[in-house]
């Protein structure tokens, strides 16, 4: 649905985006993650046709944003970082203006009413936008993006400035919309991306540093595969039995955590999944396993690792080599 090819954006000598490519399939919710100034907004601005790229191309719904700008723009609902609201208009006037501007063909009153119900701004419909709270302004911005029911929604930090209850509402709204829209949203709030998106693209210094499904991204990227297990059984015997297992590199006991229950750190060989064998072994021996978790990086750690530059990565491999 959205195809970004070799996108490069330079501001003078400053490279904001460096050869970015990705494709977003229809009906997926993609999260754009990155620290401030990483190039998230620039990418979104280029996709929506507000800026143009120095190099590369963007296709939305099969329309090139340079060759067919109006057709491409018609496919997109865009909520910029700062909602483009006219403070001297009422919500009603504003939505009607945007309705005309976007040349929407749905029955006007019904369409606008539906969207207002959806983002819950029907109670401020006749109020001046300048007098609304930030949360309401944000929602008017979302309403504006939804006008005309475009197949692609691009939301730049959609939950900024909302209170926790509203954040949950908006997230749920995005999830609902995700059923029949392609959504690209940016954020630097990790749990948000984790909660809403199916796929995450991490971007730093204008480059894509990670791209993958939300649930597997952390797993794939962490090079160490350590498991933390709590096992009810005699410490030494358990240690020996697990060490003797195939593909196990190292087992360390963390000591007794509950009466008779010990916690172990088990490191498997790279690329090997030892969880099944471990389970089988413990069942055979009759030692109940009370908990098992892997030390995959949480997204938070992953994010920090990916975005704090290549230094950390190098240090890590050096340490490993030593």
């Amino acid at each position: 649905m959205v195809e970004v090819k070799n996108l490069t954006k330079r501001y003078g000598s400053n490279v904001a985006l460096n050869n970015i490519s990705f494709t977003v399939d229809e009906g997926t919710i993609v999260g754009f993650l990155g620290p401030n100034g990483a190039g998230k907004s620039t990418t979104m601005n280029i996709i929506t046709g507000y800026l143009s790229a120095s190099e590369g191309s963007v296709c939305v719904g099969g329309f090139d944003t340079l060759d067919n700008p109006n057709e491409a723009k018609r496919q997109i609902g865009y909520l910029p970082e700062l909602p483009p609201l006219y403070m001297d208009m009422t919500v009603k006037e504003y939505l009607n203006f945007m309705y005309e501007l976007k040349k929407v063909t749905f029955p006007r009153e019904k369409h606008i009413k539906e969207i207002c119900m959806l983002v819950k701004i029907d109670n401020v419909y006749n109020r001046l936008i300048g007098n609304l709270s930030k949360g309401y302004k944000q929602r008017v911005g979302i309403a504006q993006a939804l006008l005309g029911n475009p197949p692609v929604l691009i939301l730049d930090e959609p939950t900024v400035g909302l209170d926790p209850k509203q954040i949950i509402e908006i997230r749920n709204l995005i999830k609902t919309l995700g059923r029949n829209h392609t959504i690209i949203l940016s954020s630097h709030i990790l749990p948000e991306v984790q909660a809403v998106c199916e796929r995450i693209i991490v971007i730093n210094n204008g480059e894509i540093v990670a791209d993958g499904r939300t649930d597997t991204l952390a797993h794939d990227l962490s090079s160490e595969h350590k498991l933390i297990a709590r096992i009810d059984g005699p410490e030494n015997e358990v240690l020996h039995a697990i060490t003797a297992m195939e593909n196990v590199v190292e087992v360390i006991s963390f000591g007794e955590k509950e009466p008779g229950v010990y916690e172990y750190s088990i490191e498997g060989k790279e690329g090997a999944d030892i969880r099944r064998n471990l389970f089988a072994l413990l069942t055979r021996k009759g030692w109940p396993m009370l908990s098992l978790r892997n030390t995959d990086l949480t997204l938070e750690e992953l994010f920090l690792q990916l975005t704090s530059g290549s230094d950390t990565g190098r240090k890590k491999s050096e340490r490993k080599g030593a």
Partner: protein
Amino acid sequence: MAAIFKKELKSYFSSPIGYVVVAVLLALYGFFYYVTVLYRSSSYISSMVYSNMFMWSMMIIPIITMKSMSDDKKNKTDQALLTAPVGVTSIVMGKFLAAFAVYAIAMVASLIPALIISLFATSMSWGSVLGTFFGSLFYGAAMISIGVFVSSLTESQIIAAIGTFGISIFLILVDQLGTVVGGTIFQTILNWISFNARYQPFTNGTFSIPSLVFFISIVAVFVFFTARKLESKRWS
């Protein structure tokens, strides 16, 4: 284009700016009509009212156009306009026409005293009155297109207003400059760009096609420049 025009025109009159501009223009027209009435001859309408108003209109037009483009830039609402399926030229035309409509409202209302005078005058020189009326509309349109362009260059309304004032003052003084500066080439060029010189034929009641073409060309050129300026956001 229609959506932007409607919205812009509404915003002129949802803030005091539209009313103030129209009121000031009409107050000035009122004053010069009053002077004309003292002369007790309707044939002075074009020379007294509309000729004098040339300068004042040129001074007031920057107020109309100052926020036209700069406001959108400052409030980032240009993101909504530029990402909507409309071309930049339609955006600029919508804005230009809205600013022009504000000016045109004042101009149409300026004919009211002329109508009243015609009720009492034995003979009314409608030719010269309407000639100057249309002439005023044309130079107004040209000045507004310049103002809209200047407004697109900056985020600040003040700078847009002062910049346009500068151009207005230059255009008002250009005739005097022409006489001061020697050298026939400069003089020709200065006379060529003089709005006043182009406006003069209308005050005699002649509908000057060359002048009309001149003013319309100015509008076209500056609407084009403004559109390119708006689009340049996409290159930089």
